């Protein structure tokens, strides 16, 4: 008996820790993939709590839903997001919690981000990445040295179009900044490089100009400006092994310094205070008198198959129609796949058409 109770307590503590730490990691890590995995871990912890409450079926359902569902969600997230591996963010200034949950993330090389293949440099593919690695290395070396390496960086980093335009500005900037803060002096160049390899040229130039001005103004005295902050981050934890600060910088403005963040924390704390308060107060609401039944799956089944049968069947039919519609919309031929992926398709180019629909082929 004693042993059983101890085991229960240990299991409860473990599952609770898993749940809470998973949630914390989910909201603080820099990598979206990790974020998804942490969310999954958190839900699995909740499932463990269900099982401790002897609701096995519910717990297992939860695990099943969230392993499969979360993996599919992660897949879509990876396909559609710009920086799923957190490589851009990895070199940024982070709070200790964020640093803890983002440990071991590798900052990203420029070429790879462009290729859309996340932060992957395969063993076979590594020859393609070499120059970039080189450039990145010089870049990080440059932080310590000064002007000369900046030139070297310019050359090694063959960004023709835009960075040529950017060059005069950069030089001017550098001349200005030579006396003091070298780090800030690199910013405009970095912006140019990024935006070039990125998407939008026109906007890039404008943005570059603005940031220029900003850097000038803020470099000396305002540590709160985004870029400045970021540079501090890099200087501080050099153990993180970040080659490319510029990536982080670019993203700074977009997502990292969300003004709502302190609010989110405040709201979270307020909610938990309310929850704990309710737990202590235990108001007598009408719901509390409802009888708790351990046989709830059976009751739900009875309700679905008895009282709510028609609604249940109707919803089932609607979902089935939706599935058929989705399959119909996705029929091959309407969306030819991209050339690059063709190489990865294993079987031959003309798949044997499957018998059900003879008119179908691709």
């Amino acid at each position: 008996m004693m042993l059983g109770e101890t085991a229960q307590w240990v299991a409860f503590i473990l599952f609770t820790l898993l749940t809470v730490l998973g949630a914390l990691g989910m909201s603080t890590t820099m990598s979206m993939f990790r974020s998804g995995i942490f969310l999954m871990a958190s839900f699995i912890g909740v499932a463990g709590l269900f099982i401790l409450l002897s609701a096995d079926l519910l717990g297992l359902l939860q695990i099943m839903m969230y392993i499969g569902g979360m993996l599919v969600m992660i897949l879509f997230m990876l396909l559609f997001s710009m920086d799923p591996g957190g490589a851009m963010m990895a070199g940024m200034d982070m709070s200790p919690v964020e640093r803890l949950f983002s440990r071991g993330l590798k900052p990203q090389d420029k070429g790879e981000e462009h290729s859309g293949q996340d932060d992957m440099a395969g063993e076979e593919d590594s020859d393609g990445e070499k120059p970039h690695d080189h450039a990145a290395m010089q870049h990080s070396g440059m932080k310590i040295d000064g002007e000369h390496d900046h030139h070297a960086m310019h050359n090694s980093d063959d960004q023709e179009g835009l960075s040529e335009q950017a060059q005069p500005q950069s030089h001017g900037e550098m001349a200005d900044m030579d006396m003091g803060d070298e780090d800030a002096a690199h910013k405009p160049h970095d912006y140019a490089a990024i935006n070039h390899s990125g998407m939008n040229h026109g906007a890039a130039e404008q943005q570059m100009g603005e940031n220029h001005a900003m850097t000038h103004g803020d470099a000396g005295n305002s540590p709160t400006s985004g870029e400045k902050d970021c540079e501090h981050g890099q200087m501080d934890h050099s153990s993180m092994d970040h080659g490319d600060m510029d990536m982080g910088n670019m993203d700074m403005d977009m997502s990292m310094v969300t003004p709502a963040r302190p609010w989110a924390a405040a709201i979270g704390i307020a909610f938990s205070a309310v929850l704990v308060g309710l737990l202590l107060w235990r108001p007598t609401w009408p719901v509390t008198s409802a009888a708790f039944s351990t046989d709830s799956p059976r009751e739900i089944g009875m309700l679905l198959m008895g009282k709510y049968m028609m609604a249940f069947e109707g919803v089932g039919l609607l979902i089935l129609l939706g599935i058929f519609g989705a399959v119909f919309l996705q029929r091959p031929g309407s969306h030819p796949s991209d050339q690059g992926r063709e190489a990865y398709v294993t079987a031959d180019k003309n798949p044997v058409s499957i018998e059900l629909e003879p008119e179908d082929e691709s």
Partner: protein
Amino acid sequence: MVVGVAFTFWLERALTLAVGAAQSLKLSEDVVLTHADRWMYPAGPISALFGVTVAAAVLPFGPRLIGADLGIGAFYFIVVVDFVVLGVALSGWGAGTRNAVESFYRITAQLVSYVIPLGLAYVGALMMAASLSTTQIVEAQRDVWFIVLQPLGFILYLVTGLMQAYRAPFYEPLSEHLGGGFLNFVGGWKALMWRAALAGLLFVISAMGAVLYLGGWLGPWLPPPVWMLLKTFALMTLMLWLGRRFKPLSTAQMLSLSWRILIPAGLLNVLVVGGLILAGVGPQ
């Protein structure tokens, strides 16, 4: 479990010359990856082996010879086998190489394609047994095996089981076109664990097939565990042999096979089984 894995490994090597994807892993040397994620990459094989081992707990090898006779055993089995896919995801992404990530994408797509027909293949047997407990399912087949009553469900289980085990026609995520997928980037103890996990995966899937459709441990003369193992390996041999008869399918083809053939077939099987139960055929 260990014996089962060893037998599976041997049988697969004997039967299929170059297909078992994990067969060529090098155990003696570890592979060092420059872009690997230090936490997720080793977590993959651990998660996968955990799933397989825990799944083996509900397989009955005799009337009392079972790790844990859960009331919801079959459902539990489906759930914990998913940890293998999670392991692949962790390992594939964590390896941080192009082919590994690609193979992770594909394995997720494969999960989407097999999971519904697999569930339908279970549902047929579960409806007849009127229980989720694995021992009850076997007991329900005392008179006649479910393979006789629902051959369609059995075929469905063969196909989806192969898909779930990443064996012959459905091994695209691990194929040589992707450089062996994520498996190419493991070595040392991780390779050993992946080997055990993938062989064990095939073993538990065949054992579950034997439980669902071949009457588990039931049989004359021989002791129950022997029957169970015999049926398991017979089913495994059948699956591997049949799988070798077909051309390997790409992930897209698997998805289309699943949606166009397997799911309708599974629904049909459920309908037929419902009719049989209404007609009074099968265990009472």
